[in-house]
């Protein structure tokens, strides 16, 4: 905690704002049951009610409270975002570290795979994959992870290549340190800040991608993610001709943008912190 408050000092005002917004969303997701009075999946009022005292953000076409949907949707968005980031971050870090450390044909092999993944247009492939795996939250996370780890792997590998040449690693190596020791003691702690940064960035991307997939109807139909709210809203025939969009479409959109923006702000500050040239400021990781 002490280190956290110390590092908070290096955040810019926008970064701090991002952190605050992000923590608000977290609180929202955690205490969603206490924040809502209406259920998020069952109709609790008239259809398409504009915001009023009872339904602060109005209701959708079947009368489900939008505030409840939004609050519970935060759970889905955060879950998808951070789980995807976690899986792909860890996997990417491992692959990057392994490829960078071993070098040679292993390195070339992984790098070609990564290059291939990077040039693939991800959205169409994701749609195909999502369609192939079928709708569902786990599937969405899997599909998103499959495309995200390459960025982390690439960054981590390049950093490992640099650290590997450092004389203190060479010294440890000729002193008899094995690969496990080197990775644990030298490589991993060095790349950890980079992994954090790339994970935060991936979380933002994943949240948007999840919304995108849901918007295309490839999300989990039983869940109520923000993407799905937008999907349902846009499927409503009269959405563009009526004033329904001012609550039905706007609030999920704002929530989504707010979250992604907050992540972007935090990510930008973390990047500056994890910059090797600013190593002095992030002793012991972020």
């Amino acid at each position, binding site marked *: 905690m002490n280190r956290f408050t110390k590092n908070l000092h290096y955040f810019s005002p926008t970064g701090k704002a991002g952190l605050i917004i992000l923590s608000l969303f977290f609180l929202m997701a955690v205490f969603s049951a206490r924040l809502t009075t209406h259920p998020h999946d069952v109709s609790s009022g008239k259809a398409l009610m504009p915001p009023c005292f009872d339904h602060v953000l109005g209701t959708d076409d079947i009368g489900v409270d939008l505030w409840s949907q939004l609050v519970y949707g935060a759970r889905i968005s955060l879950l998808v975002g951070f789980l995807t980031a976690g899986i792909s971050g860890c996997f990417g870090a491992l692959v990057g570290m392994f490829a960078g450390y071993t070098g040679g044909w292993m390195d070339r092999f992984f790098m070609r795979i990564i290059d291939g993944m990077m040039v693939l247009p991800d959205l169409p492939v994701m749609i195909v994959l999502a369609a192939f795996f079928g709708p569902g939250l786990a599937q969405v996370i899997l599909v998103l992870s499959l495309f995200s780890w390459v960025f982390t792997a690439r960054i981590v590998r390049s950093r490992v290549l640099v650290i590997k040449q450092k*004389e*203190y690693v060479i*010294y*440890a190596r*000729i*002193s008899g340190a094995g690969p496990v*020791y080197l990775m644990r003691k030298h490589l991993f702690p060095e790349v950890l800040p980079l992994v954090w940064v790339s994970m935060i960035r991936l979380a933002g991307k994943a949240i948007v991608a999840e919304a995108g997939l849901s918007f295309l109807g490839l999300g989990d139909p039983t869940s109520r993610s923000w993407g799905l709210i937008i999907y349902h809203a846009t499927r409503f025939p009269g959405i563009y001709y009526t004033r329904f969009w001012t609550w039905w479409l706007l609030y999920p959109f704002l929530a989504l943008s707010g979250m992604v923006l907050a992540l972007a702000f935090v990510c930008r500050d973390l990047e500056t912190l994890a910059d090797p040239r600013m*190593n002095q400021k992030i*002793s*012991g990781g972020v």
Partner: protein
Amino acid sequence: MLELNDLSIVYPENHGPLTAVDHVSLRLERGGRLGIIGESGCGKSSLALSLMGLNRKARTHGTIVYQGVQLNGQSDKAFKAVRWKKIAMVFQNGSEVLNPVLNVFEQLDEVLKTHRRFSTKQRRELVLTWLERVGLDRNWAFEFPHRLSGGMRQRALLAMALCCEPELLILDEPTSSLDARSRSELMGLIDSIQADQGYSLILISHQLSVIEAMTTDLLTLYAGQMMEYGPTHTLLHHPMHPYTRGLINASPDYQIYKELWGMPGGNHETPASNGCPFAPRCVQKGPRCKNSRPQVQIITDGRSLACNKGGIEILLKGEHLHKSFALKKGTVQALCDVNVELKSGEILAVLGKTGSGKSTLAHVLSGLYPSDQGRLTFWEPGLDSLSATRKRDGLQIVFQDPYSSTSHRMTVLDTVKEPLDILGWGTSESRRDAALSALAQVELPNKPEFLEKHGHALSGGQRQRLSLARALTMKPRILIADEITSMLDPSSRANLLRTLMGLQNAQGFSMIFITHDLFLARKVADRVMVMDRGRCIEQGSSVRVFQNPFHPRTRELVDTMLGNVKNEPMLGMKQNVYNLLKPREAETFFQVNHNKEQRRTP
């Protein structure tokens, strides 16, 4: 002529007998010149006094045989028969030996009166002739000793010793109190009279240049025991015993460039009689040295040696090392048929321009990458460069860049004890203790707040000390220092070097010091190896290489970097330009510069 067989001289002291000379055997032929060197208290003077029979307090064992007659163990008569007449001695301290109430003439006269049968007139003539021969004016003959200068007193003593025309002259530190000019005069004198009279000579001196000039054979004594014996020149230039080398390294007439360091631990108690007496101070002592007394062994060409390890060990030997690196187009030959040898306790400087293969050599030796061809042997059979770096008492390397060689992220303590952690040596407490003592050795604080500091919070000099401490926790036998001072400011560099040299002297590890700075190498090295384009072009003692380089490229290197700079910096620059460019280009270069200068001055 003179033969010592197993001679021991023991002083019966209150707290037990003190052995001043311990089982020394040697022979001196007629006309032979023997030098004896050793630290104070090693028994040189006791030996000399015993030869004269003047060591009445001491008990002698073994025999002193002079021309077939055993001198010791008999009554004093045997000695009286030879003292002054056959064996004469010039004592160390003129002012104490000469009788203050007799003038010089009377003192010499007294000696002649006692030992020779001459008439008064003959004696007078003889005394004055001898005084003149040793270069003391007749006028001084009738002065009292206190009116004479040190050199004059020494001359008077020499005349006193020579006037009985002895067959063996013992000189105990005859030149120690003289200035350089008087010293060389006196030496010349002894030399010329010896050529004339043909006496044998035993010279005891701390001044190795005097020993080398005056003697043909040399004996080194330590704690009364013979350590090494052999022809003077060979012994002084290729010592085989660590003690002899230590004496030479501490001598300013031989170490003209290198910093002087005495052998550490001079005031030790007399060691146990069953081991090697020099073992506590020896840089290469092994378990055997503690318990087994070294026997004198004849090596070759009249050299003998008393060392359990057979003399100075060779710790590392690389033969015909090759290493090349693949480039995009072709290969670069970084090492080409390099032979390298490192003895225990020795500092080898590897010199050469940038890209000459110095660091590649260091990396091959430390097992960073294997050599393409060639053989690398270490002090222990079965040890290779990989296993040598992975053990305590092995090989350690310190790199050039302090910012890269220690992690900015690890704490001081973690960095220093890292090699021990990797080895899993001892308990975590003992590792911590080893790290703390290594930090103290490199003069870094070992307070808790410093131990918890991260690498990035330290200066370059501190970080270089840190990486040195890290190497020292492994108690290395060989330390490879790869340009360790090149990135430091002059003051930090000097401080680090002094610390390093002090540690080297105290712990006795061997060092390969890689540098392109010839000034630095001259201060540090015992031996120098010069590399050029991956080849070793010259190897030799530091003094020899810097004073008289054989290879033209070494000469060029020494001239451009040391020679001309010494005389005139600009000339050095000019020489550099000439070396780099072809003569005509160089001319143009200076012409252009000259014109520019002229244009600048209105």
